[in-house]
Each structure stands twice: as C-alpha cells, then as structure tokens.
C-alpha cells in the first residue's frame, strides 16, 4: 500500500530537480555582469521612493479567511460524495443540514459585504 507512494516521492524529487537544474544551467551558461541599476527593483523609470513592503487592501485577507472556511467544507464533502449513493436518505438529510448551515453562513457573508470588491 505504502509502496504506491514511492513513485510520487520520485516525482516530487524529479520536480525539484527540474526546478534547480535549469536554474543552474542558466547560471552557468548565461553571463553574470551585475550592476547597481540592473539589480535595482523595477519601477517606471525612476528610482523607487518607497519600500515595497507596503499596506494592502484588507479584502485579500478576508478572501483568505473565507477560503479556509470553504476549503474545509470541500474537504468534508469528498468522503461523503464517495459513499453518498450507499448512505441513502440518512446521508442525504445529514449533508443537507450541513449544506444548509454552510449556505446560512454564506448568505451572512454576502449580506455583510464581505464579497464586495468596489
């Protein structure tokens, strides 16, 4: 059973190698002539006059929070989805209650303007 995951480990290592390998090749083949102008951060033609670790809109944070919530719901749905035709009405009603609670929360977020982006 666990042997099934050996190819996956090999693939993950291969993926990492595919990330590091080309960068090494590029570093070896390409020139390396750094200068101050080239290495400065990209800005529209003038030196940056502000740190780029700046404030950003709180909505991004809100979306991240909502994501955790809903992704957890998805994680709960998967095991149920696999066996739901065997569970019969019991499983259906159980999941309907769960879905109902989810929808109530969703409507709450919607009405509170958590999903507005203007």
């Amino acid at each position: 059973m666990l042997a099934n995951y050996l190819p996956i480990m090999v693939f993950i290592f291969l993926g990492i190698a595919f990330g590091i390998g080309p960068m090494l090749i590029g570093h070896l083949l390409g020139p390396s002539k750094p200068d101050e102008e080239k290495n400065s951060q990209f800005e529209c033609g003038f030196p940056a006059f502000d740190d780029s670790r700046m404030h950003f809109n709180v909505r991004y944070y809100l979306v991240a929070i909502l994501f955790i919530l809903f992704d957890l719901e998805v994680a709960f749905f998967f095991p149920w989805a696999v066996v739901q035709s065997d569970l019969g009405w019991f499983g259906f009603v159980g999941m309907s209650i769960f879905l109902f609670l989810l929808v109530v929360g969703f409507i709450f977020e919607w009405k509170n303007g958590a999903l507005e982006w203007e």
Partner: protein
Amino acid sequence: MMMALWQAFVVSTHNLLPWFDGVIATVLIILIKAFALIMPLMLVVAYFTYAERKMIGYMQLRIGPNRVGPRGWLQPIADALKLMTKEIIFPSKANIYLFLLAPVLAIAPAIAVWAVIPFAEGIFVVDLDVSLLYVLAIGSIGVYGIILAGWASNSKYPLLGALRSASLLVSYEIVIGFALVTVVMIAGSVNLNTIVEAQRGGILHWYWLPLLPMMIIFFISALVETNRAPFDVVEGESEIVGGTHVEYSGMTFAIFFLAEYANMILMAVLAVLLFFGGWHSPFMGIPYLEFMFSWVPGIVWLLAKSSFFMFLYLWVRATFPRFRYDQIMRLSWKVFLPITIIWIFVVALMTQLKLGVWFG
C-alpha cells in the same frame, strides 16, 4: 515477455553488482516511466507555445513565427536556447533564497501531479486510490510559488500580482473543489481510473451531459487557475507590467513559464478524464461507427480530446478582452459558488431518487 526480460536483467545485474537489489530496481523502473512521461510533456509544452503563437497569429490575420526553421518549427528550441544563455538577475533588495525557492515551488507540483494521471487502460505511473484528491492537494501548492515570488522580489508590481493571484487562485480552488464533488458523487470514487471507467460508453455516457453546468464552470475555473486570458489579471502586462514575473529573468522566468503551461495541459487532460470519458471512444455503442474506429487506441482519443481543450484555451485568449479584477471575484463568489452548491444538492437528490437517465 518484457517482465521476464526485466527480471533476467535485474538478477544478472544483481550477480554482477551486489548493491543492485530490488529497491533500486524498482526506483529505476519508476525513473524510466517518469522520464517517458516528463520528456514528452516538456516537448508538448514547448510546441504548445509555438502552437499558441501560430494560432493566435492566424486568428489575428498575422502569420506568427516563421523564421527559425521551416515554417518556424524550430522556434521553441531557439527560445529555450535563448533563455538558457540569458543572465539571471538577482535583484539587490530581494530575499535571495525565497526568490530562488519560488520557481522550484512552482514547477515541483506541476510535475509531481502527473504521477497519478492515467493516459489509457493500464497506462499510468501509479494507480493511487485517492488520485483526484492528490491532484487537488498538490495542485494547490503551486500558489505558494507565485506568492513567494511576489513577496521575495521586494518590488511593487510583483507584490500586487502576488496578492491578486493568491486571492484569485484560492477563490477558484473552492469552485473547482465543489465542481469535482459532483463528479465524485456520480462516479462514487476519487480514483481517476475508476472515474473514467464509470463513464464507459459513447459520447452520451460521459459526464459532460449530466453535469453540463459543472463542466463549464470547471473549464472557466481552469482558465483562472492557470492565469490564462481573459482572467490573466495576475500578469496583466498592461496594468502591472507582468505581475510576479517582473523581477525574474532567464531560466528563473522560464521555469515559471514551464510550470504554467504544464498546468494548462494538466487542466485540459483533467477536464477530459473527468467530463469527457478519458480514453473511451466517442462512438462506443453506435452500430457502424464503433466498428470503424475500433482500431484507434485509447491514448489517441485522450490526446485528441485534450488537444481540443488546449485549442480552446488559445481560442478563448484570442477572443475575449481581459476581465476587471472585481468582476472575476464576483464571478467566483456570487455566481459560481451558489451554482455549484445548488448543483451538489440537485445531484444528491437525483441520485437518491434514482431520477434521470444518467443517475443512480
């Protein structure tokens, strides 16, 4: 025959070199399989970029690349060589380790995810029982690459691109998750092989018909997940000059590019596996046509259908203008999410009532 030869090879090598035992032989065979998969994948990625430039060129009444080799056939090779010999710039303000970790985090999941993808009956690297969950789980690691790239660059445009992409990717991941739940509900399994086998039959037996809204939502979400036009606000070259890629040059940029296109191909293959019957012939069950096309191997059908989806990506890109960011977020949270939640309920009800031709 092949297995016997392999056994003989393993035994004779073990006699010659004592350290060569079963485990190393297993890893070796996995490596051979992996390269048999990844090398064609890289070739497809290279020529997909060529196809993209050429097709969009024709759609816009240009001829696209035509200088390198006959009809521009060697263009991707030339591009690769050019990127290899370009200088890799390390921005002086960047967090250099995170800056270099980001491309690796982008490409590693894009490659690792292919381990569980079946290509035809019996053609796969590993038949995992939870392969669909694995695809979802590994696929969502890719977002770390983009966020890290934006953050580590320590520059304004990459940061904006990273923020945009982070909330975009997570929003549509929920939608994709819910859409896949409906597929799992009908197929009764999270194993990709079983899901494809559950769709055995002609074009009318595949899940695109009973799950048509989910199929459309999945395809559109796949466009967002892979940062494709018309949802490419993450790169948005006319707004934030390239988003997370701004500070990357040479091979470090090429790796992001590679990962993005590998993900596009993955999404096309996934759409085929989940909604378009994988390797089954579309003519199965149709009296005359089934016989006529019975000689076509399953993998050809899978590749043909995936190519169609890959063509759709290009077609969509050439057709639609870019969405505004708030419109995309609205589409995800206020349109797709309610639809998918209702459809989960509908599909569950249909399965319980044994209603409909395709359910139960």
